[in-house]
């Protein structure tokens, strides 16, 4: 029986963890199988959750979030017969699959859309916890914005420095207000549960927002420009499908293999014009083919398009 462990922020953050849950559920619906799951209440519980599932014979065990990296590195060797998969972190153990995403590529696409939709030429970015991973989102986004309109302003804020930043809608909302007052008319929230507050305030104040990880367009129909899809669901779905035969090693999911992308559905079709779609799809193809490279913040911890 496979197991899934959600990171702080919880299964129903409408974003990152919920995407993982979606993948697991899809697997369960299709195969009729069942899976174990649990949510973290605090940092200190990670190890217990991992061990508990390993002890009870769950296999494979999938966890979402870089924060599991350290404990997984400790726990995995104790259970050599169990396969683990971790999202967003590389753990070099023989029985671990590490799934990482090219978030900068997807963010680049939504950055282009933001720039095209903006009337003030000022767009915002609200990140969750201030870590290189989130800067990677921001950097890709800013590059996309600048690609469309080189003079545009990108305002980037982070919610916090601890995991609490993933679940702080109040702060998300305040930061959104701040960005609005600075002229932003599109904000991109890459902040897990905090994003709920960002999208809410953006909708209340009548500006556009961009969701992240899951497709969040439905949250405020007609007011969410698009969502940067990070197919955590696919990662989980595949891991579950592979079962105990799960191949270990590093898996990179990018535009080329459908790991990231942007969402287009009935909720935002009126916001995305044909031109916008054409421009983005063209860039997407170029990136996928390798013709064009989006700078990855984590490769050198710097960003050409935005400063933090």
């Amino acid at each position, binding site marked *: 029986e496979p197991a899934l462990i959600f990171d702080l922020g919880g299964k129903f953050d409408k974003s990152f963890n919920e995407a993982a849950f979606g993948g697991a559920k899809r697997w369960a619906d299709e195969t009729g199988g069942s899976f174990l799951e649990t949510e973290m209440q605090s*940092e200190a519980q990670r190890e*217990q959750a991992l061990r508990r599932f390993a002890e009870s014979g769950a296999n494979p065990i999938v966890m979402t979030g870089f924060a599991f990296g350290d404990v997984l590195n400790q726990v995995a060797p104790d259970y050599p017969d169990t396969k683990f998969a971790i999202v967003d972190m590389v753990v070099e153990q023989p029985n671990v699959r590490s799934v990482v995403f090219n978030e900068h590529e997807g963010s680049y696409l939504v950055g282009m859309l933001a720039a095209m939709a903006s009337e003030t030429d000022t767009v915002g970015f609200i990140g969750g916890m201030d870590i290189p991973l989130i800067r990677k989102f921001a950097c890709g986004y800013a590059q996309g914005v600048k690609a469309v309109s080189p003079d545009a302003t990108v305002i980037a804020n982070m919610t916090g420095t601890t995991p609490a930043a993933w679940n702080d809608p109040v702060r998300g909302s305040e930061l959104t207000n701040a960005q609005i007052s600075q002229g932003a008319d599109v904000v991109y929230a890459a902040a897990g549960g905090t994003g709920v507050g960002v999208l809410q305030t953006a909708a209340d104040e009548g500006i556009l927002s961009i969701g992240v990880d899951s497709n969040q367009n439905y949250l405020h129909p007609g007011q969410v420009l698009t969502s940067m899809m990070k197919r955590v669901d696919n990662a989980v779905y595949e891991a579950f499908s592979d079962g105990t035969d799960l191949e270990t090693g590093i898996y990179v999911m990018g535009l080329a293999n459908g790991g990231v992308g942007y969402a287009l559905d009935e909720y935002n079709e009126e916001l995305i014009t044909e031109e916008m779609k054409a421009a983005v799809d063209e860039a997407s193809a170029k990136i996928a083919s390798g013709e064009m490279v989006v700078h990855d913040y984590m490769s050198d911890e710097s960003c050409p398009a935005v400063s933090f």
Partner: protein
Amino acid sequence: MDKMPHWADVILIPLISLILAAFLSALVILAIGENPVEALQLMVQGSLGSTYGWGYTLYYATNFMFTGLAVAVAFHARMFNIGGEGQAMLGGLGVALVCLYVPWPHWTIALVFAIAASAAFGALWAMIPAYLQAARGSHIVITTIMFNFIASAFLNYMLVNVMRPAGSMDPATERFPEAVNLPTLHEMLLPFGIQFSKAAPVNFSLVIAILACILVWVLIWRTRLGYEIRAYGHSEPGALYAGISPFKIIMISMLISGGLAGMMAINNVMGEAERLVLNATEGAGFIGIAVALMGRSHPFGVFLAAILFGFLYQGGAELALWTNIPRELIVVIQALVIMLTGALDNMVRMPLEKLFLSMRKGRA
């Protein structure tokens, strides 16, 4: 005459409160559409049904012994130390500093210094509220609450800005070196041919916690200091009359209390996580209040209550894993225990006293 025999006071009342709390919790479980009997079975199975379960139960119990003793010692001096949480956090900082920045040859030596550091940091964090209470009469409950928040912000700062290793995204310290890892119960029992779960985090700290229970018992009931603490706790004017300095007692009892709370860190930080993470205390400081109330501030009572809460904690985690009952159920139980043994005490006591009084009249 006493209204009630002593045993009723120390055994019957906590027991009745516990049963009431259990009953109310069962109602809650029923209300959310689960079966309380099955839930209890699951809790028992998950926490006591295997050495793995026991390992976690005892691990948590170790935490609660330290924080429970901390609250109990302060109670004896009639101080209510709500600050166990913050003191335990600071204790964690002390342990991390000792373990990370000194190359220890062996865990035994490291442990001695880790105990000293955790106790010193915890005591330090209790010292300011204690001083303000002793010298300026600032209400210790309020100041210790404030100090919990300050501790949390301070630790946050330390982990995010100071102690986080370069390149790590986690607000946590590095792993401690192998040499300072405490032996787990598994390793301790192996020489005796006993197979205890390898995965369970219960470790040598349990021995320290039990020792602490014994030492606190000796301190409170057998030493002059304990005599003075108890005397002060019963009557401040009395203490003054007997030449017991209230200032000294407040300071010492709070320092001991803070030190005990801080010492919890040898279990969760040094013994289990082997690094310092955010919120490593997980509310154990508050559970200590429930444990001390339930255990009637007596070290043996604290020992038993800590194991009970260890069971609840581990059982609750199991419930959350296998059923739809969230982990918060144990927060509810814990709240009920605190309410019933600490605040609604008289609700249980009054009818009991009447009962005993009428029984005595019946005999006479």
